[in-house]
Protein backbone atom coordinates (compact mmCIF):
# COMPACT_ATOMS: atom_id res chain seq x y z
CA UNK A 1 0.00 0.00 0.00
CA UNK A 2 1.62 3.23 -1.18
CA UNK A 3 0.28 6.27 0.58
CA UNK A 4 1.27 9.82 -0.25
CA UNK A 5 0.63 12.79 1.97
CA UNK A 6 0.56 16.28 0.50
CA UNK A 7 1.82 18.31 3.41
CA UNK A 8 0.78 21.87 4.08
CA UNK A 9 3.21 24.14 5.84
CA UNK A 10 2.52 27.10 8.03
CA UNK A 11 5.44 29.35 8.92
CA UNK A 12 7.87 26.62 7.87
CA UNK A 13 6.32 23.88 10.02
CA UNK A 14 4.00 21.07 9.00
CA UNK A 15 0.46 21.90 10.09
CA UNK A 16 -1.13 19.74 12.73
CA UNK A 17 -3.55 18.20 10.25
CA UNK A 18 -0.64 17.33 7.94
CA UNK A 19 1.22 15.66 10.82
CA UNK A 20 -1.89 13.67 11.59
CA UNK A 21 -2.24 12.70 7.93
CA UNK A 22 1.36 11.46 8.02
CA UNK A 23 0.55 9.37 11.11
CA UNK A 24 -2.50 7.95 9.31
CA UNK A 25 -0.49 7.19 6.18
CA UNK A 26 2.15 5.37 8.24
CA UNK A 27 -0.59 3.30 9.83
CA UNK A 28 -2.06 2.37 6.43
CA UNK A 29 1.13 1.57 4.53
CA UNK A 30 4.38 3.03 3.19
CA UNK A 31 4.12 6.74 3.67
CA UNK A 32 5.72 9.35 1.45
CA UNK A 33 5.38 13.02 2.26
CA UNK A 34 5.38 15.62 -0.49
CA UNK A 35 5.36 19.37 -0.36
CA UNK A 36 4.51 21.79 -3.16
CA UNK A 37 7.04 24.43 -4.10
CA UNK A 38 6.49 27.34 -6.40
CA UNK A 39 8.18 30.63 -7.09
CA UNK A 40 4.91 32.51 -7.12
CA UNK A 41 1.59 31.89 -5.42
CA UNK A 42 0.27 28.83 -7.23
CA UNK A 43 -3.35 28.05 -8.04
CA UNK A 44 -4.96 24.76 -7.04
CA UNK A 45 -4.97 23.90 -10.73
CA UNK A 46 -1.22 24.41 -11.02
CA UNK A 47 -0.63 22.33 -7.89
CA UNK A 48 -2.92 19.57 -9.09
CA UNK A 49 -1.24 19.52 -12.51
CA UNK A 50 2.21 19.03 -10.96
CA UNK A 51 0.96 16.40 -8.53
CA UNK A 52 -1.02 14.48 -11.13
CA UNK A 53 2.10 14.12 -13.25
CA UNK A 54 4.00 12.80 -10.23
CA UNK A 55 1.14 10.47 -9.28
CA UNK A 56 0.82 8.97 -12.75
CA UNK A 57 4.51 8.06 -12.60
CA UNK A 58 4.66 7.01 -8.94
CA UNK A 59 1.27 5.27 -8.86
CA UNK A 60 0.33 5.59 -5.18
CA UNK A 61 -2.82 3.81 -4.00
CA UNK A 62 -3.89 6.69 -1.86
CA UNK A 63 -3.17 10.41 -1.63
CA UNK A 64 -4.02 12.12 1.66
CA UNK A 65 -4.49 15.87 1.96
CA UNK A 66 -5.43 17.80 5.11
CA UNK A 67 -8.97 19.12 4.77
CA UNK A 68 -8.03 22.78 5.15
CA UNK A 69 -9.71 25.15 2.66
CA UNK A 70 -6.61 25.06 0.45
CA UNK A 71 -6.18 21.31 0.91
CA UNK A 72 -9.76 20.51 -0.06
CA UNK A 73 -9.53 22.69 -3.14
CA UNK A 74 -6.32 21.02 -4.28
CA UNK A 75 -7.60 17.52 -3.48
CA UNK A 76 -10.82 18.03 -5.47
CA UNK A 77 -9.05 19.26 -8.56
CA UNK A 78 -6.40 16.53 -8.28
CA UNK A 79 -8.98 13.74 -7.97
CA UNK A 80 -10.87 15.09 -10.99
CA UNK A 81 -7.66 15.37 -13.00
CA UNK A 82 -6.63 11.82 -12.23
CA UNK A 83 -10.20 10.49 -12.54
CA UNK A 84 -9.78 8.83 -9.14
CA UNK A 85 -12.22 8.35 -6.29
CA UNK A 86 -12.54 11.46 -4.11
CA UNK A 87 -13.53 11.22 -0.46
CA UNK A 88 -13.93 14.63 1.12
CA UNK A 89 -13.38 15.74 4.73
CA UNK A 90 -13.04 12.31 6.30
CA UNK A 91 -13.02 11.95 10.07
CA UNK A 92 -11.98 8.27 9.99
CA UNK A 93 -10.28 6.22 7.29
CA UNK A 94 -9.36 2.57 6.80
CA UNK A 95 -8.62 0.23 3.92
CA UNK A 96 -10.82 -2.82 3.51
CA UNK A 97 -10.73 -5.30 0.59
CA UNK A 98 -9.05 -2.83 -1.69
CA UNK A 99 -11.51 -0.06 -0.86
CA UNK A 100 -11.03 3.16 1.02
CA UNK A 101 -13.66 3.21 3.76
CA UNK A 102 -14.27 6.48 5.54
CA UNK A 103 -16.54 8.13 8.05
CA UNK A 104 -17.61 11.63 7.09
CA UNK A 105 -20.40 13.99 7.90
CA UNK A 106 -23.18 14.82 5.46
CA UNK A 107 -26.23 17.06 5.45
CA UNK A 108 -24.25 19.85 7.08
CA UNK A 109 -23.26 17.70 10.03
CA UNK A 110 -26.72 16.27 10.64
CA UNK A 111 -25.75 12.80 9.39
CA UNK A 112 -22.68 10.66 10.00
CA UNK A 113 -22.00 8.40 7.03
CA UNK A 114 -19.71 5.46 6.38
CA UNK A 115 -18.76 5.64 2.72
CA UNK A 116 -16.43 3.69 0.47
CA UNK A 117 -14.72 4.06 -2.86
CA UNK A 118 -12.31 2.08 -5.00
CA UNK A 119 -8.57 2.71 -4.96
CA UNK A 120 -6.69 4.66 -6.12
CA UNK A 121 -8.27 7.51 -4.25
CA UNK A 122 -7.64 11.05 -3.11
CA UNK A 123 -8.87 11.66 0.44
CA UNK A 124 -9.02 14.92 2.36
CA UNK A 125 -8.81 14.26 6.09
CA UNK A 126 -10.09 16.31 8.98
CA UNK A 127 -8.09 17.34 12.02
CA UNK A 128 -8.22 14.43 14.47
CA UNK A 129 -7.78 11.68 11.82
CA UNK A 130 -4.88 10.14 13.80
CA UNK A 131 -2.68 10.71 16.81
CA UNK A 132 0.51 12.52 15.87
CA UNK A 133 3.53 10.24 16.33
CA UNK A 134 6.29 11.22 18.73
CA UNK A 135 8.94 10.54 16.13
CA UNK A 136 9.87 13.42 13.86
CA UNK A 137 7.91 13.28 10.59
CA UNK A 138 9.80 12.24 7.47
CA UNK A 139 11.27 15.13 5.53
CA UNK A 140 8.89 16.07 2.74
CA UNK A 141 9.99 15.51 -0.82
CA UNK A 142 9.49 18.51 -3.01
CA UNK A 143 7.21 18.88 -6.02
CA UNK A 144 7.93 21.90 -8.17
CA UNK A 145 4.79 23.71 -9.34
CA UNK A 146 4.86 25.70 -12.56
CA UNK A 147 2.31 28.45 -13.21
CA UNK A 148 -0.74 26.82 -14.76
CA UNK A 149 -0.65 28.98 -17.87
CA UNK A 150 -4.35 28.30 -18.27
CA UNK A 151 -5.68 31.80 -18.03
CA UNK A 152 -5.38 32.41 -14.30
CA UNK A 153 -2.95 34.76 -12.68
CA UNK A 154 -2.37 35.91 -9.10
CA UNK A 155 -2.82 39.66 -8.71
CA UNK A 156 -2.50 40.62 -5.04
CA UNK A 157 -3.25 39.77 -1.42
CA UNK A 158 -5.66 41.84 0.64
CA UNK A 159 -5.25 41.40 4.37
CA UNK A 160 -8.23 41.33 6.71
CA UNK A 161 -7.58 43.81 9.50
CA UNK A 162 -9.45 42.12 12.32
CA UNK A 163 -7.54 38.86 12.45
CA UNK A 164 -4.21 38.51 14.15
CA UNK A 165 -1.98 35.47 14.24
CA UNK A 166 -4.36 33.08 15.91
CA UNK A 167 -4.78 29.34 15.65
CA UNK A 168 -6.81 28.49 12.55
CA UNK A 169 -10.37 27.65 13.50
CA UNK A 170 -10.52 24.28 11.75
CA UNK A 171 -7.55 22.86 13.64
CA UNK A 172 -7.91 24.47 17.05
CA UNK A 173 -8.13 22.36 20.21
CA UNK A 174 -10.10 25.07 21.95
CA UNK A 175 -12.60 27.44 20.33
CA UNK A 176 -14.29 30.39 22.02
CA UNK A 177 -17.29 31.68 20.06
CA UNK A 178 -19.46 34.71 20.58
CA UNK A 179 -23.05 35.32 19.50
CA UNK A 180 -25.56 38.12 19.36
CA UNK A 181 -25.71 38.00 23.16
CA UNK A 182 -22.50 40.04 23.15
CA UNK A 183 -24.54 43.02 21.94
CA UNK A 184 -21.88 44.55 19.70
CA UNK A 185 -18.34 44.31 18.31
CA UNK A 186 -17.06 46.66 21.01
CA UNK A 187 -17.55 43.86 23.55
CA UNK A 188 -15.34 41.34 21.76
CA UNK A 189 -12.50 41.99 24.16
CA UNK A 190 -14.37 39.68 26.55
CA UNK A 191 -14.22 36.86 24.00
CA UNK A 192 -10.63 37.62 23.06
CA UNK A 193 -9.33 37.73 26.63
CA UNK A 194 -10.91 34.36 27.35
CA UNK A 195 -9.51 32.92 24.12
CA UNK A 196 -6.04 34.27 24.92
CA UNK A 197 -5.90 32.54 28.28
CA UNK A 198 -6.79 29.24 26.61
CA UNK A 199 -4.74 29.70 23.44
CA UNK A 200 -8.03 29.30 21.62
CA UNK A 201 -9.28 30.17 18.15
CA UNK A 202 -12.12 32.68 17.83
CA UNK A 203 -15.51 31.69 16.46
CA UNK A 204 -18.82 33.44 15.93
CA UNK A 205 -22.45 32.79 15.10
CA UNK A 206 -23.88 33.89 11.81
CA UNK A 207 -25.90 36.63 13.48
CA UNK A 208 -22.52 38.13 14.36
CA UNK A 209 -20.80 37.72 10.98
CA UNK A 210 -23.90 38.91 9.13
CA UNK A 211 -23.93 42.04 11.26
CA UNK A 212 -20.28 42.59 10.34
CA UNK A 213 -19.17 42.46 13.98
CA UNK A 214 -16.66 39.75 13.07
CA UNK A 215 -15.18 38.53 9.77
CA UNK A 216 -16.92 35.73 7.88
CA UNK A 217 -13.99 33.40 8.30
CA UNK A 218 -14.81 33.12 12.02
CA UNK A 219 -18.35 31.83 11.44
CA UNK A 220 -19.11 28.37 12.81
CA UNK A 221 -21.98 26.35 11.39
CA UNK A 222 -23.70 25.19 8.26
CA UNK A 223 -22.55 28.13 6.14
CA UNK A 224 -19.38 28.59 8.14
CA UNK A 225 -16.72 26.25 9.45
CA UNK A 226 -17.22 22.87 11.03
CA UNK A 227 -15.10 22.51 14.15
CA UNK A 228 -14.36 19.52 16.38
CA UNK A 229 -12.18 20.88 19.18
CA UNK A 230 -11.64 19.31 22.59
CA UNK A 231 -13.36 22.30 24.13
CA UNK A 232 -15.97 24.59 22.55
CA UNK A 233 -17.13 27.58 24.57
CA UNK A 234 -20.21 29.42 23.29
CA UNK A 235 -21.01 32.83 24.73
CA UNK A 236 -24.44 34.31 24.10
CA UNK A 237 -25.30 31.92 21.25
CA UNK A 238 -28.85 30.52 21.17
CA UNK A 239 -28.04 27.23 19.43
CA UNK A 240 -29.93 27.36 16.12
CA UNK A 241 -29.79 24.08 14.20
CA UNK A 242 -27.45 25.64 11.62
CA UNK A 243 -24.99 26.61 14.36
CA UNK A 244 -25.16 23.18 16.00
CA UNK A 245 -24.35 21.61 12.61
CA UNK A 246 -20.89 23.15 12.84
CA UNK A 247 -19.91 22.38 16.41
CA UNK A 248 -21.94 19.59 17.98
CA UNK A 249 -19.15 17.04 17.46
CA UNK A 250 -16.85 18.98 19.80
CA UNK A 251 -15.63 16.85 22.70
CA UNK A 252 -16.69 19.12 25.54
CA UNK A 253 -19.16 21.97 25.09
CA UNK A 254 -19.60 24.89 27.48
CA UNK A 255 -22.48 27.26 26.83
CA UNK A 256 -23.11 30.51 28.66
CA UNK A 257 -26.57 31.98 28.20
CA UNK A 258 -28.89 34.00 30.40
CA UNK A 259 -31.96 32.26 28.95
CA UNK A 260 -32.33 28.85 30.67
CA UNK A 261 -34.35 27.57 27.68
CA UNK A 262 -31.70 28.33 25.06
CA UNK A 263 -31.18 25.29 22.80
CA UNK A 264 -27.43 25.28 23.13
CA UNK A 265 -27.72 24.81 26.90
CA UNK A 266 -29.58 21.56 26.19
CA UNK A 267 -26.65 19.90 24.47
CA UNK A 268 -23.85 21.52 26.47
CA UNK A 269 -21.79 19.43 28.88
CA UNK A 270 -21.59 22.50 31.10
CA UNK A 271 -24.64 24.70 30.75
CA UNK A 272 -24.05 27.95 32.54
CA UNK A 273 -27.15 30.05 33.06
CA UNK A 274 -25.76 33.51 33.68
CA UNK A 275 -25.33 36.97 32.27
CA UNK A 276 -22.20 36.67 30.19
CA UNK A 277 -21.10 40.22 30.99
CA UNK A 278 -20.81 39.22 34.65
CA UNK A 279 -19.69 35.64 34.18
CA UNK A 280 -17.05 35.84 31.46
CA UNK A 281 -14.61 38.29 33.14
CA UNK A 282 -14.75 36.22 36.32
CA UNK A 283 -14.27 32.99 34.38
CA UNK A 284 -11.28 34.40 32.48
CA UNK A 285 -9.75 35.40 35.82
CA UNK A 286 -10.29 31.93 37.32
CA UNK A 287 -8.86 30.20 34.26
CA UNK A 288 -5.82 32.43 34.38
CA UNK A 289 -5.18 31.10 37.90
CA UNK A 290 -5.73 27.47 36.87
CA UNK A 291 -3.54 27.73 33.80
CA UNK A 292 -0.79 29.53 35.73
CA UNK A 293 -0.74 26.81 38.38
CA UNK A 294 -0.30 23.95 35.87
Amino acid sequence: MKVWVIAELKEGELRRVSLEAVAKATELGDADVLELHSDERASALAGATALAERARAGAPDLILVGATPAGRDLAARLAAKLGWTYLSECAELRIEDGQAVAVRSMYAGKVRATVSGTLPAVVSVRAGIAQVADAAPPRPGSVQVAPSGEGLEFVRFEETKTTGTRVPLGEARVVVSGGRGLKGPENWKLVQDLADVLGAALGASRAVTDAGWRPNEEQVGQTGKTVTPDLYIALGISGAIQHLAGMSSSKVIVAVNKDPDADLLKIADYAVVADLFEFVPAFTEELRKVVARD
Partner: protein
Amino acid sequence: MKLLVCVKQVPDSTVRVKVAGDQKAIVPEGVTWAISPYDEYAIELALEHKDANPGTTVGVITVGPPRARDALRQALAMGCDDATLVTGADVETLGGLATARALAKVVDEVTPDLVLCGKQASDDDQGFVGQALAETLGWPHVAIVTKFVASDGGTEIWKEVEGGHEVWKASGPAVLTVQKSQKDPRYPSLPGIMKAKKKEIPEKDLASLGADLGGPSVEIRAMEPPPARKAGRVMKDGDPKALAAELAKLLRDEARVL
Protein backbone atom coordinates in the same frame (compact mmCIF):
# COMPACT_ATOMS: atom_id res chain seq x y z
CA MET B 1 -21.41 38.88 -19.78
CA LYS B 2 -23.10 35.52 -19.76
CA LEU B 3 -23.17 33.79 -16.37
CA LEU B 4 -24.32 30.28 -15.55
CA VAL B 5 -25.04 29.22 -11.96
CA CYS B 6 -25.13 25.52 -11.02
CA VAL B 7 -27.57 24.86 -8.21
CA LYS B 8 -28.54 21.79 -6.27
CA GLN B 9 -31.77 21.24 -4.41
CA VAL B 10 -31.16 19.98 -0.87
CA PRO B 11 -33.16 19.74 2.37
CA ASP B 12 -33.77 23.20 3.80
CA SER B 13 -31.25 24.11 6.49
CA THR B 14 -33.94 24.00 9.21
CA VAL B 15 -34.96 20.40 8.39
CA ARG B 16 -34.17 17.79 11.01
CA VAL B 17 -32.84 15.11 8.70
CA LYS B 18 -33.92 11.52 9.46
CA VAL B 19 -32.08 8.43 8.26
CA ALA B 20 -34.15 5.73 6.49
CA GLY B 21 -34.39 2.17 7.83
CA ASP B 22 -31.90 0.76 5.31
CA GLN B 23 -29.39 3.44 6.40
CA LYS B 24 -28.64 4.25 2.76
CA ALA B 25 -30.53 7.51 2.41
CA ILE B 26 -32.56 10.05 4.30
CA VAL B 27 -36.32 9.87 4.74
CA PRO B 28 -37.76 12.15 2.03
CA GLU B 29 -41.17 12.52 3.66
CA GLY B 30 -41.58 15.76 5.51
CA VAL B 31 -38.50 17.35 3.96
CA THR B 32 -38.80 20.92 2.74
CA TRP B 33 -36.47 21.36 -0.22
CA ALA B 34 -34.45 24.46 -0.96
CA ILE B 35 -31.56 25.74 -3.02
CA SER B 36 -28.32 24.74 -1.29
CA PRO B 37 -27.18 27.76 0.78
CA TYR B 38 -23.87 28.43 -1.00
CA ASP B 39 -25.63 28.13 -4.36
CA GLU B 40 -27.96 30.91 -3.21
CA TYR B 41 -24.90 33.04 -2.50
CA ALA B 42 -23.67 32.17 -6.00
CA ILE B 43 -26.98 33.35 -7.47
CA GLU B 44 -26.71 36.54 -5.42
CA LEU B 45 -23.18 37.27 -6.72
CA ALA B 46 -24.36 36.70 -10.28
CA LEU B 47 -27.41 38.92 -9.85
CA GLU B 48 -25.35 41.69 -8.25
CA HIS B 49 -23.13 41.60 -11.30
CA LYS B 50 -26.22 41.85 -13.47
CA ASP B 51 -27.57 44.79 -11.43
CA ALA B 52 -24.32 46.67 -11.99
CA ASN B 53 -23.84 45.58 -15.59
CA PRO B 54 -27.04 45.64 -17.61
CA GLY B 55 -26.75 43.28 -20.52
CA THR B 56 -25.56 40.49 -18.27
CA THR B 57 -27.63 37.33 -18.44
CA VAL B 58 -27.80 34.80 -15.62
CA GLY B 59 -28.82 31.22 -16.35
CA VAL B 60 -29.32 28.50 -13.76
CA ILE B 61 -29.00 24.79 -14.18
CA THR B 62 -29.55 21.76 -12.02
CA VAL B 63 -29.07 18.05 -12.47
CA GLY B 64 -31.76 16.49 -10.37
CA PRO B 65 -35.16 14.84 -10.00
CA PRO B 66 -38.34 16.60 -11.22
CA ARG B 67 -38.87 18.23 -7.79
CA ALA B 68 -35.69 20.24 -8.41
CA ARG B 69 -37.80 22.35 -10.79
CA ASP B 70 -38.92 24.25 -7.69
CA ALA B 71 -35.34 25.29 -6.99
CA LEU B 72 -35.04 26.60 -10.54
CA ARG B 73 -38.35 28.42 -10.22
CA GLN B 74 -37.05 30.06 -7.05
CA ALA B 75 -33.87 31.15 -8.85
CA LEU B 76 -35.94 32.66 -11.66
CA ALA B 77 -38.07 34.48 -9.10
CA MET B 78 -34.90 35.92 -7.58
CA GLY B 79 -34.08 37.40 -10.98
CA CYS B 80 -32.28 34.80 -13.07
CA ASP B 81 -33.10 34.90 -16.77
CA ASP B 82 -33.44 31.27 -17.74
CA ALA B 83 -33.25 27.80 -16.24
CA THR B 84 -32.48 24.27 -17.37
CA LEU B 85 -33.36 21.00 -15.68
CA VAL B 86 -31.28 17.93 -16.46
CA THR B 87 -33.10 14.87 -15.25
CA GLY B 88 -33.41 11.14 -15.80
CA ALA B 89 -33.18 7.77 -14.13
CA ASP B 90 -30.62 7.41 -11.30
CA VAL B 91 -30.12 11.16 -11.24
CA GLU B 92 -30.28 11.16 -7.44
CA THR B 93 -27.39 8.75 -7.00
CA LEU B 94 -25.10 10.33 -9.58
CA GLY B 95 -21.50 10.72 -8.36
CA GLY B 96 -19.66 14.05 -8.29
CA LEU B 97 -17.56 13.42 -11.40
CA ALA B 98 -20.57 12.21 -13.41
CA THR B 99 -22.59 15.25 -12.33
CA ALA B 100 -19.74 17.49 -13.42
CA ARG B 101 -19.52 15.77 -16.79
CA ALA B 102 -23.26 16.17 -17.35
CA LEU B 103 -23.02 19.85 -16.42
CA ALA B 104 -20.05 20.27 -18.75
CA LYS B 105 -22.14 19.12 -21.73
CA VAL B 106 -24.63 21.90 -21.08
CA VAL B 107 -21.86 24.45 -20.50
CA ASP B 108 -20.47 23.53 -23.93
CA GLU B 109 -23.85 24.39 -25.43
CA VAL B 110 -24.54 27.55 -23.45
CA THR B 111 -20.97 28.92 -23.70
CA PRO B 112 -21.09 31.18 -20.62
CA ASP B 113 -18.19 33.47 -19.72
CA LEU B 114 -18.19 32.30 -16.11
CA VAL B 115 -19.76 29.37 -14.30
CA LEU B 116 -20.63 29.82 -10.63
CA CYS B 117 -21.06 26.89 -8.26
CA GLY B 118 -21.50 26.75 -4.51
CA LYS B 119 -18.43 26.04 -2.40
CA GLN B 120 -20.11 22.77 -1.44
CA ALA B 121 -23.61 21.33 -1.55
CA SER B 122 -25.12 20.97 1.88
CA ASP B 123 -26.33 17.41 1.36
CA ASP B 124 -23.17 15.54 0.41
CA ASP B 125 -20.89 18.30 1.78
CA GLN B 126 -18.22 17.33 -0.75
CA GLY B 127 -16.92 20.45 -2.40
CA PHE B 128 -16.03 18.50 -5.53
CA VAL B 129 -18.38 19.23 -8.43
CA GLY B 130 -17.09 22.77 -9.13
CA GLN B 131 -13.47 21.66 -9.42
CA ALA B 132 -14.48 18.55 -11.39
CA LEU B 133 -16.53 20.68 -13.79
CA ALA B 134 -13.59 23.02 -14.38
CA GLU B 135 -11.34 20.03 -14.99
CA THR B 136 -13.79 18.49 -17.47
CA LEU B 137 -14.05 21.78 -19.33
CA GLY B 138 -10.30 22.34 -19.23
CA TRP B 139 -10.93 25.68 -17.49
CA PRO B 140 -9.20 27.19 -14.47
CA HIS B 141 -11.22 27.56 -11.30
CA VAL B 142 -11.09 29.70 -8.18
CA ALA B 143 -12.56 28.29 -4.97
CA ILE B 144 -14.10 30.03 -1.94
CA VAL B 145 -14.97 33.16 -3.88
CA THR B 146 -16.71 36.13 -2.25
CA LYS B 147 -16.62 38.67 -5.10
CA PHE B 148 -15.79 39.12 -8.77
CA VAL B 149 -15.48 42.14 -11.00
CA ALA B 150 -15.08 42.32 -14.76
CA SER B 151 -11.84 44.15 -15.57
CA ASP B 152 -9.77 44.95 -18.60
CA GLY B 153 -9.19 41.72 -20.42
CA GLY B 154 -10.74 39.41 -17.87
CA THR B 155 -12.29 39.01 -14.46
CA GLU B 156 -10.83 39.81 -11.04
CA ILE B 157 -11.84 37.22 -8.49
CA TRP B 158 -11.61 37.45 -4.69
CA LYS B 159 -10.79 34.20 -2.93
CA GLU B 160 -11.11 33.98 0.87
CA VAL B 161 -7.98 32.59 2.55
CA GLU B 162 -6.67 32.63 6.11
CA GLY B 163 -6.18 36.24 7.12
CA GLY B 164 -7.64 37.86 4.04
CA HIS B 165 -8.34 37.55 0.34
CA GLU B 166 -6.26 36.61 -2.65
CA VAL B 167 -7.24 38.40 -5.83
CA TRP B 168 -6.85 36.33 -9.00
CA LYS B 169 -7.40 37.34 -12.57
CA ALA B 170 -8.95 35.02 -15.13
CA SER B 171 -8.33 36.08 -18.71
CA GLY B 172 -11.03 33.80 -20.11
CA PRO B 173 -13.77 31.51 -18.87
CA ALA B 174 -13.48 30.07 -15.37
CA VAL B 175 -15.46 28.21 -12.73
CA LEU B 176 -15.92 29.95 -9.38
CA THR B 177 -17.02 28.09 -6.25
CA VAL B 178 -18.80 30.60 -4.09
CA GLN B 179 -18.45 31.20 -0.36
CA LYS B 180 -20.88 33.03 1.88
CA SER B 181 -20.36 36.75 1.40
CA GLN B 182 -21.44 39.76 3.40
CA LYS B 183 -24.58 40.29 1.37
CA ASP B 184 -27.41 37.83 2.04
CA PRO B 185 -29.14 36.28 -0.95
CA ARG B 186 -32.14 38.38 -1.97
CA TYR B 187 -35.70 37.21 -1.57
CA PRO B 188 -37.80 36.79 -4.68
CA SER B 189 -39.91 39.87 -5.37
CA LEU B 190 -43.62 39.55 -6.04
CA PRO B 191 -43.28 40.56 -9.72
CA GLY B 192 -40.33 38.17 -9.88
CA ILE B 193 -42.48 35.33 -8.64
CA MET B 194 -45.22 36.15 -11.16
CA LYS B 195 -42.73 36.29 -14.00
CA ALA B 196 -41.04 33.06 -12.94
CA LYS B 197 -44.38 31.24 -12.94
CA LYS B 198 -44.81 31.92 -16.63
CA LYS B 199 -41.29 31.03 -17.69
CA GLU B 200 -40.78 27.72 -19.38
CA ILE B 201 -38.10 25.50 -17.87
CA PRO B 202 -36.70 23.27 -20.60
CA GLU B 203 -35.81 19.76 -19.61
CA LYS B 204 -32.84 17.75 -20.86
CA ASP B 205 -32.55 14.02 -20.60
CA LEU B 206 -29.44 13.02 -18.68
CA ALA B 207 -28.75 9.90 -20.75
CA SER B 208 -29.05 11.79 -24.04
CA LEU B 209 -26.40 14.37 -23.17
CA GLY B 210 -23.69 11.96 -24.21
CA ALA B 211 -21.69 12.52 -21.03
CA ASP B 212 -19.54 9.74 -19.58
CA LEU B 213 -21.47 8.92 -16.43
CA GLY B 214 -19.18 6.06 -15.38
CA GLY B 215 -16.03 6.51 -13.35
CA PRO B 216 -15.48 6.27 -9.65
CA SER B 217 -18.31 7.08 -7.32
CA VAL B 218 -18.71 7.05 -3.59
CA GLU B 219 -20.90 4.32 -2.14
CA ILE B 220 -22.86 5.01 1.00
CA ARG B 221 -22.57 2.03 3.29
CA ALA B 222 -24.44 3.34 6.28
CA MET B 223 -25.86 6.60 7.53
CA GLU B 224 -26.64 7.35 11.11
CA PRO B 225 -27.47 10.39 13.17
CA PRO B 226 -24.41 11.90 14.84
CA PRO B 227 -23.89 10.54 18.34
CA ALA B 228 -26.53 12.11 20.56
CA ARG B 229 -25.27 14.44 23.24
CA LYS B 230 -26.77 13.86 26.62
CA ALA B 231 -27.79 16.82 28.69
CA GLY B 232 -24.93 17.97 30.82
CA ARG B 233 -24.51 19.73 34.10
CA VAL B 234 -26.62 22.84 34.56
CA MET B 235 -24.88 25.54 36.56
CA LYS B 236 -26.92 28.49 37.75
CA ASP B 237 -28.11 30.54 40.68
CA GLY B 238 -24.81 31.54 42.05
CA ASP B 239 -22.64 34.51 42.32
CA PRO B 240 -20.84 34.70 38.92
CA LYS B 241 -17.46 34.48 40.63
CA ALA B 242 -18.35 31.26 42.41
CA LEU B 243 -19.83 29.77 39.23
CA ALA B 244 -16.71 30.74 37.33
CA ALA B 245 -14.41 29.13 39.89
CA GLU B 246 -16.50 25.97 39.91
CA LEU B 247 -16.52 25.70 36.11
CA ALA B 248 -12.77 26.25 35.85
CA LYS B 249 -12.24 23.46 38.37
CA LEU B 250 -14.62 21.09 36.56
CA LEU B 251 -12.96 21.70 33.21
CA ARG B 252 -9.62 20.84 34.70
CA ASP B 253 -10.49 17.92 37.00
CA GLU B 254 -13.62 16.38 35.51
CA ALA B 255 -13.55 17.16 31.77
CA ARG B 256 -9.74 17.32 31.73
CA VAL B 257 -9.60 19.72 28.83
CA LEU B 258 -7.33 22.38 30.29
